[in-house]
């Protein structure tokens, strides 16, 4: 079953919300459309989005890696190159703590950013159904819909005041995968 993307563009939030409600009426599930806006709205303004992310795990993993690398570098160099300075122990822990701390934090930050990019499904340079007016303040409703309900979705959006409705072949994204699977199960 081929999927198609339909993008409806609304110039104001009221009609966009109306459009979202209308989509629900014509049987498009919440998981099957995304709302594109140029700034966040209060959570749930367009109905609750159920996607989850593992972003919280990334800094933890990063911190562990950074800690290990820090330990290796600070401990390793002291062991490999045992030079006495100031009569301090050849394996001095306090200075290691400082550098390991920095290493831990550095890796945690880097992993968080990588995680943010990964969890946002980025980078994604292939052509998307997208409209530059969204960053001008338009609200886009992007429906990943099976072939047969494309028209009803587009119709619903036009009816609720979408200024423009565009369609394209859907790109299989991770976000749309489980939704499709669910519905298959439901229809079977």
């Amino acid at each position: 079953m081929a999927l198609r993307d339909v993008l409806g563009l609304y110039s104001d939030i009221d009609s966009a919300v109306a459009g979202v409600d209308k989509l629900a009426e014509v049987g498009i599930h919440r998981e099957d459309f995304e709302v594109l806006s140029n700034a966040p709205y209060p959570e749930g303004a367009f109905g609750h989005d159920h996607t989850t992310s593992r972003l919280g795990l990334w800094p933890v993993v990063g911190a562990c890696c950074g800690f290990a690398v820090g330990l290796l570098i600070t401990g390793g160099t002291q062991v490999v190159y045992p030079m006495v300075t100031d009569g301090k122990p050849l394996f001095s822990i306090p200075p290691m703590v400082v550098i390991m701390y920095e290493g831990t934090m550095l890796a945690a930050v880097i992993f968080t950013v990588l995680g943010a990019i990964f969890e946002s499904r980025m980078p994604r340079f292939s052509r998307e159904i997208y409209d530059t007016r969204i960053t001008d303040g338009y609200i886009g409703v992007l429906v990943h819909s099976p072939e047969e309900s494309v028209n009803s979705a587009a119709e619903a959006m036009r009816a609720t005041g979408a200024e423009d409705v565009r369609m394209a072949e859907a790109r299989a994204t991770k976000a749309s995968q489980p939704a499709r699977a669910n519905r298959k199960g439901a229809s079977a």
Partner: protein
Amino acid sequence: MAHRWGMTIDLDLCTGCQACVVACQAENNIPINTEENFQQRRAIEWIRVERYWEGEFPNVKARYIPVPCMMCENAPCEPVCPVYASYHTDQGLNFQVYNRCIGTRYCSVNCHWHVRFFNFWEPKWPDSLKQQLNPLVAVRSRGVMEKCSFCIQRIDHAEQSAQLQGRDVKDGDFTTACAQACPTRAIVFGDLNNADSEVAKTVASTKRGYQLLADLGTNPAVVYLKKIDADPLPEDSKHKYFDSSQYTRVKETVAVG
């Protein structure tokens, strides 16, 4: 047992003649300190003679303390160097590796005897002196730290010849340039770990011994012997020229009678 090179400096014998300074300058390829250098406060003297005036004119006494590198056992200058240019050898020497030095100058900041010198300029010698440079000692470029090495080239030479002869280095095999030049033999150099050496005997027997800034707990290898003043100044004429709070500790450490 490893060597621990050390020095005793008898302040009772020191006349402040600066022969040690000159000898060191010649031995260790130290650039010529011009007047301009002195005025910029960038003169390099691996051993310097600190001079203090005590008393009020006309009852004035001059005190001299020759200050080479103390070769601290726990040297504060070492752990601050990011590149191990300053480290501790197994002979108890606090060592400076010129090649490794990047010139952060932190070691000088954390040397409280002020015996670390920075090459602010490219070192220069007049043509007439270029032939006298000691071939055993590296000439330091600008941008690196340098300091007294207890004449490491002499130590090395002595150790090598002793090895060739199949024996250990004996006390008196060699001495540092400053000790060699000292006309009153105020400076004596030797192995503190060798109980038979002159320095070890002096350190063990003397009642006049003290270390500079001993309270910092770094255990310097240079031991000073107090001056015994035969003709002490009257109490009321002391310390008028100095801010007393500054001078207290010098007074405590340097014998004034």
